[in-house]
């Protein structure tokens, strides 16, 4: 009746997951009870859960990403503590548990923290910057989000029902095959990643369509803000790479569920094929994350330098260059499998060529600052921290692309230090810069600067104290994923690294304090103009938070910096001109399709993990029925009357006219 699911699935013998799981469940129930008691449930259901507004979906993505960032960070703290303790000892985590912790850390951080954060910011910002009212397929957007949330839920469910994969964040066969991983851990991984992967692919389709088809009148490709270009490049990579991931994991699933032999030791299976395929997705994946991060830095550096981006076309070229070359480098993940001098050299050179594109970007940001008037706000600090950190992280990356050097450093702690160097210094810093930068647009008030800057300095210092020692132990021959060790030379470095984690915790606390303090002081920090930073692109041309339709009248774009151009002309004319002619607007209706779909997807995933076949059929029927009901709906849109549009827009117009043009709040 319940397949493989029995009481043994609950880890009664392991206090750590049991207690932490219980705490999480109680906290979630507490929040739910609080929301119901306050009577907020109808509001949440109407305005958020069923919302197809790209701004609300973007905010929910970021919230999910931040929650998962905390979860993954807790895993990181556990790992650093284990390695600090496990010298000539077992530490406090047995290998069976430690292996789940590092597998969950990687999976969660890449797929359920970084991806939702980047996609969330894309969701919120891209339609506003393009000067349009929504994405191309609003309901599909909601489905994407909820499927991603399903994946995150399944991963976290494995904490207390069963186990998570013990194979690393990429389940290399033969270790991940049934013979060597008979538990449900790998199955949780497979279904969580497959379901959220569908969501990511749909996001890719949605944003490529939006950017190619739905720009404001006059916004040609070369008038798009840099963030839109990087979002386009990132989504093109999603379209090309995620089907590879889906197919690869589907083959592993067939091996595990139906006795196929794609990657097994027996019957002609070839595990090498998995390495090739998974990295054909895996390497573009890091550019899917880092390209939008580059876009965020471009926006922030340009705005706070008070200048347009230097070498805009060069920047676009570098972005597309990285986008294409990122597909020609996957073999550098296994130089040490012995492909031979020619193959290794070609992939080594291809990999280092990517650094040309990144180098060009770095110099363009440098010359954007040249001749500027730089305001050192929190987002600008994150960007400067990125510029100085990422360049050395890129350097260690190119080092790993030199095959003879990789023969010494492959899979070592040096590698671990390298990719945290670029992902933390590149993506996490960007996301925190982006959240601080667009927060006033999303909620109508700025974030408090003191705690934001404190968070930055702790994060920067903590980053170096944590990861520089890992470079050193890598040079001392330490490989990754060791649950215990007995090499005395490694110990002091691992202790320093654990101390670095404490500094990072201080940074995380400052970040949380910043959000809380800013919320409490929101009336002091209020921005009524919608343009708190003296911005240059169209998202700053509307109110904060923007009305549901984003722009009362679609902007007419005449320049690469659409809003800067508008402000300049308005200043020349001493005012923003007469009130436009308002018309009634049609906006997409909210839909519970995404949420209901994800509900059934969760059931399907859970049933497949535990082989509860009847429940899987129930889930499939439910998901299909949801789709049919959505397809047969009669009224997809509703009308906002012209008077309502005018009423919502006027308040912001008045606030803008009272504020002096070109002068910023800071």
């Amino acid at each position, binding site marked *: 009746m319940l397949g493989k699911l029995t009481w043994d699935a609950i880890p009664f013998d392991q206090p750590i997951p049991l207690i932490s799981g219980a705490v999480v469940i109680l906290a979630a129930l507490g929040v739910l009870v609080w929301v119901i008691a306050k009577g907020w449930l109808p509001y949440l259901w109407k305005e958020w859960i069923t919302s197809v507004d790209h701004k609300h979906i973007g905010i929910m993505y970021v919230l999910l990403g931040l929650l998962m960032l905390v979860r993954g960070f807790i895993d990181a703290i556990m790992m650093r503590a284990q390695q600090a303790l496990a010298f000539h000892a077992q530490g406090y985590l047995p290998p069976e548990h430690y292996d789940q912790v590092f597998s969950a850390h990687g999976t969660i951080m890449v797929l359920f923290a970084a991806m939702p954060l980047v996609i969330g910011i894309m969701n919120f910002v891209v339609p506003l910057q393009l000067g349009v009212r929504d994405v191309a397929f609003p309901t599909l957007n909601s489905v994407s989000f909820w499927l991603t949330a399903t994946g995150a839920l399944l991963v976290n469910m494995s904490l207390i029902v069963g186990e998570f994969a013990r*194979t690393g964040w990429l389940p290399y066969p033969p270790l991940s095959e049934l013979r060597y991983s008979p538990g449900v851990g790998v199955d949780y991984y497979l279904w969580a990643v497959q379901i959220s992967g569908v969501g990511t692919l749909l996001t890719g389709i949605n944003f490529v369509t939006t950017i190619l088809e739905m720009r404001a009148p006059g916004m040609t490709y070369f008038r798009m803000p840099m963030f839109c270009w990087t979002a386009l490049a990132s989504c093109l990579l999603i379209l090309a790479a995620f089907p590879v991931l889906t197919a690869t994991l589907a083959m592993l699933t067939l091996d595990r569920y139906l006795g196929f032999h794609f990657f097994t030791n027996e019957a002609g299976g070839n595990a090498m094929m998995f390495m090739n395929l998974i990295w054909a997705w895996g390497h573009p994946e890091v550019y899917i994350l880092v390209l939008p991060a580059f876009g965020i830095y471009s926006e922030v550096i340009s705005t706070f330098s008070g200048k347009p981006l230097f070498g805009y076309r060069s920047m676009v070229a570098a972005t597309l260059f990285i986008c294409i070359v990122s597909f020609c480098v996957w073999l550098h993940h296994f130089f040490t499998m012995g492909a031979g001098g020619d193959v290794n050299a070609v992939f080594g050179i291809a990999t280092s*060529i990517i650094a*040309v594109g990144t180098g060009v970007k770095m110099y363009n940001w440098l010359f954007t600052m040249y001749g500027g008037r730089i305001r050192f706000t929190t987002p600008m600090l994150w960007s400067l921290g990125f510029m100085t950190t990422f360049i050395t992280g890129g350097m260690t990356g190119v080092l790993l692309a*030199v095959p003879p050097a990789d023969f010494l450093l492959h899979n070592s702690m040096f590698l671990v230090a390298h990719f945290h160097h670029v992902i933390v210094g590149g993506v996490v810093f960007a996301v925190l810069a982006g959240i601080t930068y667009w927060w006033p647009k999303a909620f109508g008030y700025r974030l408090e600067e003191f705690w934001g800057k404190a968070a930055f300095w702790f994060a920067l210092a903590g980053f170096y104290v944590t990861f520089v020692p890992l470079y050193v132990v890598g040079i001392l021959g330490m490989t990754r994923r060791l649950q215990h060790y007995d090499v005395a030379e490694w110990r002091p470095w691992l202790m320093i690294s654990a101390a670095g984690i404490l500094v990072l915790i201080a940074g995380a606390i400052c970040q949380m304090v910043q959000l809380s303090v800013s919320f409490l002081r929101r009336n002091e920090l209020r921005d009524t103009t919608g343009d708190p930073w003296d911005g240059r692109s169209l998202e700053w041309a509307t109110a904060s938070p923007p009305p549901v339709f984003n722009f009362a009248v679609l902007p007419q774009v005449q320049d690469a910096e659409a809003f800067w151009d508008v402000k300049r002309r308005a200043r020349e004319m001493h005012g923003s001109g007469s009130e436009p002619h308002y018309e009634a607007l049609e906006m997409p209706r909210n839909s519970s399709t995404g949420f209901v779909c994800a509900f059934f997807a969760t059931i399907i995933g859970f049933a497949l993990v535990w082989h509860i076949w009847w429940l899987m059929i129930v889930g499939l029927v439910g998901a299909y029925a949801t789709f049919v009901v959505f397809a047969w709906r009669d009224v997809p849109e509703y009308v906002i009357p012209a008077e309502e549009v005018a009423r919502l827009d006027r308040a912001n117009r008045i606030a803008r006219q009272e504020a002096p043009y070109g002068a910023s709040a800071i």
Partner: protein
Amino acid sequence: MKSVGPMVRQAALQALLCLAAVMLAPSLACADSILEPVGPVGRGDAIILLDAVVIMLAIVVPTIMVTLAFAWWFRASNTRAVYRPNFTYSGRIELIVWSIPTLTIFLLGGVIWIGSHRLDPFEPLPSTAKPLEIDAVTFDWKWLFIYPEQRIASVNRLVVPVGRPLHFRITSASVFNVFFVPSFGSMIYAMNGMVSQLNLQADKPGKYLGLSAHFSGDGFSDMRFDPIAVPAAQFADWAAGVKGAPLDRAAVGVLLKQSRAVAPYTYRGVDPALFDAIASQKLPPGEGPQSGRGAPGTQNAMSRGRAP
């Protein structure tokens, strides 16, 4: 004037080398560091690594300094800095901006091309001595080193003669692992159904660190072995004096079962066809665990699978 240029360049290079040395000094001092190799392969790898670091530091350090300098000078409160809100394009700067990384990668590309060929792990070392043949097999979770010419085998201990090239054939009887002795140099994967080759040499007697550099399951941390380099005469004595049961199919059957932290022991009398039988999968692969939540026939994953 002519003599100044090279001097400046030399001084700059020396400064960079010093910087690199200071950064890496703590690790250089230790044993088992990849920067303290005891053989020609490790030395070749380490030199290329350091070359690449120096080439890149030559542009990385100035770029970081210029970034901080620009950010500081063009701060909004500096009234002496000239504000140029329309400085958004300069053909000359664009040319330089694309040239600097491109030229660096050209140089580095040469290093990569030459290094990849010269240090290809499959290529025999240039030496007049005949290499010692060693066949390595990984099991869950121990290393088996077969010396086919001596008809002996050793578990979790690799004894090698100093100054003589070593030729490894490496495969796995279960999941992937990586053969790695940091002091000797290059590592290579051990993969089921495939045979990798590796050529190494140790020039200094001593006991070194040996490990698997690819995660292979719950007993991975104990995938350690002791590489011991001894003078040639001592190696011959050791090989002649090795005792133990013969290594045949039945003995391999025992190795195929999962076990952890196995103390080193030896075999005398090795079936010469055994390595090929494992590599060509004529012998069954490693058994794998009988644990894991939700796996058939298991009650409690955590208390199982431990070494006795």
